Structure formats: C-alpha cells, structure tokens
C-alpha cells in the first residue's frame, strides 16, 4: 500500500519533469497567429466583416473578438481553412455580413466619370488611376472587387462586372463518374 503510493508519486513526478522539459526543449516558434490568419483571408479589404481591412479582422479573430464566419468574399473555403487553423468547427457564413458572390471587378464608365477622385480615395489597394478633373480608370488586375468605390461616387458611374471565364482560366470540372452510382442510388 505505502510502497504503491510512493511508486506512483515518483512515476508522476518523473513524467511531469519529462513533459515539462519537453515543452521547453521542443517549443515551436511559429508565426504569430495573426499572420497565419491573415494569410488565409482573401485580402479583398472590403470591410464587410465590420473591420477596416483583412488584417484588423485577423487580429480580432486572434484576440477572440470576432467569429470566423464574417468574410463573404472568402466564403466556405476561407471559413474551412480558418476552422482548420484554429481547431474549431466550421460554421455557415454569417448572413449579416453579406452573401457569397461571384468574383467581380469594378469598371468605371468613362463617359460619365467627372474626375472627382472620391473613388481613388476609397480604394483600399490603389487600383484606380486618375487625377482631379480627369476621368479615372480601374486597373482590373489589381482590383479586389471590394465595392468600396461604389458608395462615394457622386455620379454612380462605377459598375461591378463579374470576371468572365476564359479558356485559359477555365477549370476542369470534378469528374462525375464516382458520384454517379451514389446519386442514382439515393434517388431510388
């Protein structure tokens, strides 16, 4: 009886010391969490999550202030990746922040543009070119489709246009064959 207690105590102490040593010796100095979260976010900088950009949102998630389902441009994929990173359960997108939309790009109707520069100031990624009283244009390559330039435009000359799929951006669809018999059977 007495010897058993001693044996267990010694065992517990040794294991504890080993674990404690291992924790210090093999400590992983990873990237700070904020960077990892920020790397997953789509960098649209649209603010739909209620934070002024992707990095502030990442910081808020890291601090536990924001949930992982507030990013409509990222959609399911981003939520899944965040859930994986943070070891949480994925959840559906919070509809209060918007809905998932196809990828868009802003296009300025140059005949209507008055050159007020308000959109230039709104663009989070400096993707609009132009000077005061000269018409502006969007660098389509750089546009993230955040829509932040739409509200400030006094003449409503900016349209969001879905990015067109071309032969070079086309993706092979997921093959149908493996699913076929499953679908057929569930329909029985």
């Amino acid at each position: 009886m007495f010897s058993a207690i001693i044996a267990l105590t010694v065992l517990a102490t040794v294991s504890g010391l080993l674990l404690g040593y291992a924790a210090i010796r093999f400590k992983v100095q990873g990237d700070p969490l904020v960077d990892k979260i920020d790397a997953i976010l789509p960098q649209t900088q649209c603010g739909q999550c209620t934070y002024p950009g992707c990095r502030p949102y990442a910081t808020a998630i890291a601090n536990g202030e924001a949930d992982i389902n507030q990013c409509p441009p990222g959609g399911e994929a981003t939520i899944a990746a965040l859930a994986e990173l943070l070891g949480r359960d994925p959840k559906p997108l919070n509809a209060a922040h918007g809905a998932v939309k196809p990828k868009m790009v802003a296009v300025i109707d140059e005949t209507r543009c008055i050159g007020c520069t308000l959109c230039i100031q709104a663009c989070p990624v400096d993707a609009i070119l132009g000077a005061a009283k000269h018409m502006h244009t969007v660098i389509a390559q750089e546009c993230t489709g955040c829509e932040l330039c739409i509200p400030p435009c006094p003449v409503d000359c900016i349209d969001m246009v879905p990015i067109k799929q071309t032969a070079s951006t086309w993706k092979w669809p997921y093959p149908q064959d493996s699913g076929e018999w499953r679908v057929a059977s569930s329909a029985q």
Partner: protein
Amino acid sequence: MPNPSFSSAPMREASSVSKVMLQVIYALMPGIAAYVWFYGWGVVVNILFALVVALLSEAGMLALRQRPIKPFLYDGSAAVTAVLLALSLPPLAPWWMTLIGTAFAIIVAKQLYGGLGFNPFNPAMIGYVVLLISFPREMTTWLAPEVVSGHSLGFFDSARAIFSGQLPTGLHMDAITAATPLDALKTRLSMGHNATEVMHSSPIFGVLGGKGVEWINGLFLAGGLWLIYKRIISWHIPAAMVAAMSIMALVFYIANTGTHASPLFHLFSGATMLGAFFIATDPVTASTTPRGKLYYGAGIGIFTYIIRTWGGYPDAVAFAVLLMNMAAPMIDQYTQPRVFGHKD
C-alpha cells in the same frame, strides 16, 4: 452536347473487375478438383453454401447501405471471398461455421469498411481467423485423405454430414479424420521426435508435403502461374512469398534437419500455394507499388514460416496475410517508384 466528363474513348477491350474475378475462379478449378479427389465432395458443398451466404450478405448489406446492388453483386468479389474461405475450412465443417465465417467476412470485414475497394483486411482471412479463434477444435478436425482412410463420401453424404452432422451408417468421425500434416509434424516435434522419422511414420505424409495436400498445392501453383501468364496477377507477391519461405525453411533445415522440415515440405503443405497466388494477391488489401509487392510477399512468407514453426497454430497463412495487410499502406509509402525525370 457531348457529356463533358467524357474525355477519351476506351481503346482496349477493357478488363473489368468481374472478368478478373471470374478468371481467378477458373484458376482455382484444378486445385478444387484435386481437393475433391482427395477429400471428397464436402468442399464443393462448402463452396456452394458459402457462395449463397456471401451473395445474400453482400446484397443485404448493399441494400442497407443504399448502394446499387446489381453492379456490385456481379463484380464477383464476394464470390471469390466465399470460395477462398470455403477452401480454408475443413472439408466437413458444419454448415453454421461456414455461415458465420462467410457472413462475418462479407458483413464486417468488407461492407462495414465501405465495401469493394475499401476493406483494409482480406475478408476471407478475417472470416477464417474468426472461426479458428472461436472454434479451434472444429477448425482443426480435418479429414484424412480418402486414400488413407479408405472411405469416400459422395456429394449427398457430404451434404448430409455438413448440414445434419450425420455420417453414413457404420462410419464414425474418428475413422475418417486425422491431423493435418503440418499439425502432426508440429505435435510430434514438440514431443521430441525427429522430423525425418515423423514424415516416414505416418501415411498422411506424401513425397513432398502431406499426401493429397501436395497435389492440391501443386495444382493451385499451376492455376496461379496461369493467372500470371494471363496478367491477372503480377508475379511479385507470389514469387517473393515463395522465395522468402523457401529461404527461411532452407536456413533452418540446413541448421538442423532433425527439428525442421524441408523447404519443399513447407511449400507443398497447408495453404502455401493458395495463399501465395490467390490470397496474398488480393489487390485491395495488398501493397501496390512494384517494390512494395516484393516486401509484402516476402513478409507473408517469413511470418507464415515463423508462426508455423514456433507459433501456436498449425498453419499461418491467414495470420501472416493479415499482419502484412496492416503493413501495406506503410510499405506503399516507402516504396514509391522513381518518377520519370526525377533523381532517386
């Protein structure tokens, strides 16, 4: 509008899962014939009953899992499992053993893991091991070859014995049963007898292995070679298994001929050839890389010899196969072939 998922036309008379399975059954036929010749018709009754059980279990499970039944029932994989299991059972094994073994193999070992292609362990061997562990006495009660016992049982006599336990009048179970050669050798060796003497002491031993068993093994070997010739199976696993077992046996035989049987005895006894060409080669549960197949087959050969020689069971192909099933994913991971254009 063409189907977008259709990308290329089938250019060859494509082999299919069902054709593969059918050819495996054909290749088993000579061995089964020898089985009937030496042990009577019991094995055929067992095979037919196991087939019925296997197909019913498969259909029932597919229905429960809401999968289409027809393509999977026709793929023939359940039939092959049934035949292999029935061939592993004693020729007059009571019907409920066949029922339990086959049902367990199909329902638990195959369908509960996801059905065709997803089972990690060979279903027939799982069924066999379940029976061996649960009913060791029944599973080791083998018939003596008919040439030894002098009695022969026809199809209906065998069926009656299997389903009602009644032998034809005037015949007792003791009169027609005997230990298997592997079992007999092991028992006598443990009693301190000399291996060579043992083999000459009893009529159940033949020229190479056990009387009858050596013929059955030989014909399974022939069937297996035909499968390799037809490119249904690759040579890697059987060759590696036979080679590994021969080397193991040879080393110990040379070391001490008194306590160890010859390599030929091991090759032509028990389930060696059935295991090498028909059980170990089950693609679903085996290694798939060319180099991995060699390791996998060699592992089975080595484990079979070890368990036969020092383990508690007379034959060991089933255990060896299951052990290597476990190792197969790891073997595959470490034996990936060198990809074209890559350095080693």
